[in-house]
């Protein structure tokens, strides 16, 4: 389990706000730091995978916690 430097709660937000907020949060972080993002968007799982692939940031972990709650652990790589 990676140490989490920042947590971003996107609960209640639908597409595309979770990826928009994630990008913004990462902008303010250092390379190597880890962000945890919480989302209740049912589309967040495929969206975050695509987002990580496109941006090159590392999606360390994505969890479906049930009840439409998802958590993502992202490492800023550049």
């Amino acid at each position, binding site marked *: 389990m990676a140490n989490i430097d920042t947590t971003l709660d996107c609960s*209640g*937000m*639908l*597409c*595309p*706000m979770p*990826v*928009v907020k*994630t*990008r*913004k949060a990462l902008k303010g972080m250092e390379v190597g730091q880890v962000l945890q993002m919480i989302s*209740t*968007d049912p589309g967040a799982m495929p*969206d975050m995978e*695509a*987002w990580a692939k*496109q*941006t*090159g940031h*590392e999606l360390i972990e994505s969890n479906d916690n049930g009840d439409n709650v998802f958590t993502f652990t992202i490492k800023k*790589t*550049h």
Partner: protein
Amino acid sequence: MAEPKKQKRLALVATKGTLDWAYPPFILASAAAAMDWEVGIFFTFYGLPLLNKEIKATISPGSNPAMPMKMPFGPEKFQNIDWPMPNILMNNMPGFEGMATGMMKKMFKNKGVASIEELREACVDMDVQMIGCQMTMDVFGFSKEDFIEEAEVAGAAAFLAYAADADVSMFI
């Protein structure tokens, strides 16, 4: 970790100015920009007012007979009912459009969809290029001063040259 590949580019043409149709270009643009893509939106014809400082987009149920009408309040079962809206009612009842617009805004807000203003602001924050169509401005009497200050103005040839190097292009 390898550096991401060459920056991708999205070129959008936004041609519609109703509230519902204002969403797709701003959603796609902000999602692409959030993935570090370069994004340009060319606003033309009825899409042009989306560059206005204040967006006054409404929905137009009369010209969209397939539009479902749902109630933004009440129990979930009630909210999920599709209310049939006869055209005669939509086209002739004064104030219907305003009411339908208010209901759609409320439904979007309840469900957690960002407003058009928020999405446009996110686009501006992420350096999405907003380009107004010069010809449409001349025809419909818009001036650059009407628009948000981040807006640029260009013609079809200039936008096509931009789109020629895009990885994804869409006409909305």
